[in-house]
C-alpha cells in the first residue's frame, strides 16, 4: 500500500505546478506514496501546519526551517526546491534607476517581511557587494506582494522585491523592468547556488517513513523534469492569473530556471557561508547557530 503524504504549500506558489503534475501524472504512486496537496494562504499558516504536524512535508525558506530547528522545533530541510531565480528587484520602466547600485538612498519594498529569506538575501547582496544596507537607513519597507506594483506606480516606493507569479505578471505588463535577479548576482559574486525554497519534514515522520520521504523526492524530481519538458502545464495557471501567451511563456521560463534538482553537502556548505554573511547584516538572534541536523541528505536519490 502507498504511504499517504500530506504536502503543505503556499496557496499561490509555483511549487504547486510541479506538485500538481506529480499527482496528475501519478509520479507519487510510482514511488509508493500517495500525495494530497494542502494549500495555506500565508507562509505563517504553512509553517504552523508544518510545525503542528498538520502536514508531513512542506515547502518554505530553508532559513526559516533552520531557525525553527535552532529554536527546538523538530523540523529539517531535506531537499532543494527553488534557487531564487524568480526573485527580481523591479522598478517602473521609466525609472532612472538602472542597477542595484542606484538603490542607495531609495525606498525599497520587500514582499517577504523582515524575517523572510528573500529579504535577507536582498540585504546580504546589497551590503556585501554594493556597500549599503537599505534597512540601516530605514529605506527598506515591507508590504504584501499584491500591493507592491501599485505602490511603485503611485511613487510611494522606488523599487520592489517581488517573486513569481506576481513578478512575472508585473514584467509581462510592460510597466516594470528588472534591475537585477538576486540569485544570479549572488551566484556570480560567490560561486554558490542560492536556495530560496526548500522541502522540509518533521523528525517523527521522517523516522517512521524514511522510504516514503525518499520516494516522494524521487517523484518530485521526475515531476520537475516533466514540467521542464512540458511548459504547457503553466497554461492553466497563467490564465487564472490573467497572463497572455507571452506572459505565460515568460513565467514558465523563469520558473523552470528556478527549480533545483541537486541536493548535497556542497550545496549545504554554500548555504552555511550564506548564513555567515546573513548574520553580519541581521540583528542578533538570526541564524545564530545553525545546527547540523537542520539539513539531511539521507533521502536524496
Amino acid at each position, binding site marked *: 500500500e502507498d504511504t499517504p503524504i500530506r504536502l503543505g504549500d503556499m496557496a499561490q506558489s509555483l511549487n504547486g505546478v510541479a506538485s500538481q503534475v506529480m499527482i496528475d501524472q501519478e509520479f507519487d504512486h510510482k514511488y509508493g506514496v500517495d500525495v494530497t496537496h494542502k494549500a495555506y494562504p500565508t507562509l*505563517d499558516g504553512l509553517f504552523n*501546519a508544518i510545525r503542528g504536524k498538520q502536514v508531513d512535508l512542506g515547502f518554505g525558506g530553508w532559513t526559516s526551517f533552520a531557525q525553527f530547528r535552532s529554536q527546538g522545533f523538530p523540523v529539517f530541510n531535506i531537499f532543494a526546491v527553488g534557487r531564487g531565480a524568480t526573485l527580481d528587484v523591479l522598478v517602473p520602466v521609466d525609472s532612472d534607476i538602472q542597477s542595484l547600485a542606484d538603490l542607495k538612498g531609495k525606498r525599497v519594498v520587500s514582499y517577504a517581511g523582515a524575517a523572510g529569506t528573500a529579504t535577507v538575501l536582498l540585504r546580504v547582496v546589497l551590503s556585501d557587494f554594493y556597500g549599503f544596507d537599505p534597512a540601516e537607513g530605514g529605506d527598506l519597507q515591507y508590504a504584501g506582494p499584491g500591493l507592491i506594483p501599485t505602490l511603485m506606480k503611485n511613487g510611494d516606493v522606488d523599487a520592489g522585491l517581488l517573486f513569481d507569479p*506576481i513578478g512575472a505578471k508585473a514584467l509581462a505588463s510592460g510597466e516594470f523592468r528588472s534591475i537585477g535577479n538576486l540569485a544570479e548576482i549572488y551566484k556570480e559574486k560567490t560561486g554558490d547556488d542560492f536556495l530560496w525554497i526548500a522541502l522540509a519534514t518533521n523528525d517523527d515522520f521522517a523516522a517512521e517513513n524514511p522510504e516514503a520521504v525518499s520516494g516522494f523526492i524521487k517523484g518530485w524530481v521526475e515531476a520537475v523534469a516533466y514540467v521542464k519538458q512540458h511548459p504547457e502545464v503553466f497554461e492553466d495557471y497563467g490564465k487564472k492569473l490573467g497572463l497572455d501567451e507571452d506572459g505565460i511563456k515568460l513565467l514558465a521560463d523563469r520558473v523552470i530556471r528556478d527549480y533545483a534538482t541537486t541536493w548535497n553537502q556542497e550545496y549545504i556548505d554554500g548555504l552555511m557561508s550564506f548564513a555567515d554573511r546573513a548574520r553580519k547584516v541581521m540583528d542578533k538572534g538570526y541564524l545564530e547557530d545553525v545546527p547540523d541536523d537542520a539539513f539531511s541528505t539521507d533521502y536524496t536519490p
Partner: protein
Amino acid sequence: MIAALLAWLGLSFLFPETVLPGPWRTIQVLAENFANGDILSHLTATLGRVLGGLVLAMAIGIPVGVLMGVNRLAEKTLDVWVMVALTVPSLCYAIFAFIWIGLNETAAIVAIGLTSAPSIAINLWEGVKNIDTRLFQMARVFNASRWVIIRRVLFPQVLPYIMASLRFGLGIVWKITVLVELLGRPDGVGFELFYWYQLGNMQQVLAWTLLFTLVMLFIELVILQNLERRMFSWRPEVRI
C-alpha cells in the same frame, strides 16, 4: 444601502480595476464563485468560527464584567487580568491555542473567544457601574435573592450594554477569525481573502469581503434589529 453602493461605485472610478474593482465586477466575481461551488463550505466554516467565538466571548465576558461591576474585590483582582488579556495579541492566543489544543476548530474558536472576551467584559463592567442602585434596594426589600436581583434587575439594566457588545463583538470576532484562519485553518472566508490578497487579486478580495458583509448585514438587519425592537419596546424614544 444604495448610498453605500454608490459610494463604492464612485470610489472605484478613482482607482484602476486591479486596485478597486467596481461593485458590478465584484458581484460578477462573487456569482462566479457561487457557481464554482465551494463558497458555501468556506462560508459555513467561517460562520461556525465566528458564532462559536462570539458565544464563547460572551459566555466569558458577561459574567466577568458583571462580577467586576458588583464586587469590589473582584474588580481589584480582575482588573489587571482583563487588561493583560486585552493586551495579549491575538497572535499569541492563536499560537498557544494551536499548540495546546492542536490545529483544529476547537483551538480556533478558543483563540477567537479569548481574544474577544476582554472587550466585552470591559463594556459590561462599565455598564454595571452605571445602573440605578435604587432599583436594587427595591428588589432587596422585596426579598429578592441575589440571583433574582442579577437576573431580573441587573440584567435588564445592562442589556443595552450586552446588545452593544453583541454588535461590536461580532465585528471583533470576525476580524480575529480572519487572522486565525490565516494562521492555522485551511479554509474559510478569511483564508480565501488572504489567499487572493497574496495573489494581488483585488476582485476576489472584494468579492469575499462583499459576501461576508452581506451575511453581517443580514445578521444586523434581520436578527439583531428585531431582537432589539422586541426587547426595548418599552423604552421611550430619544429626541433632542
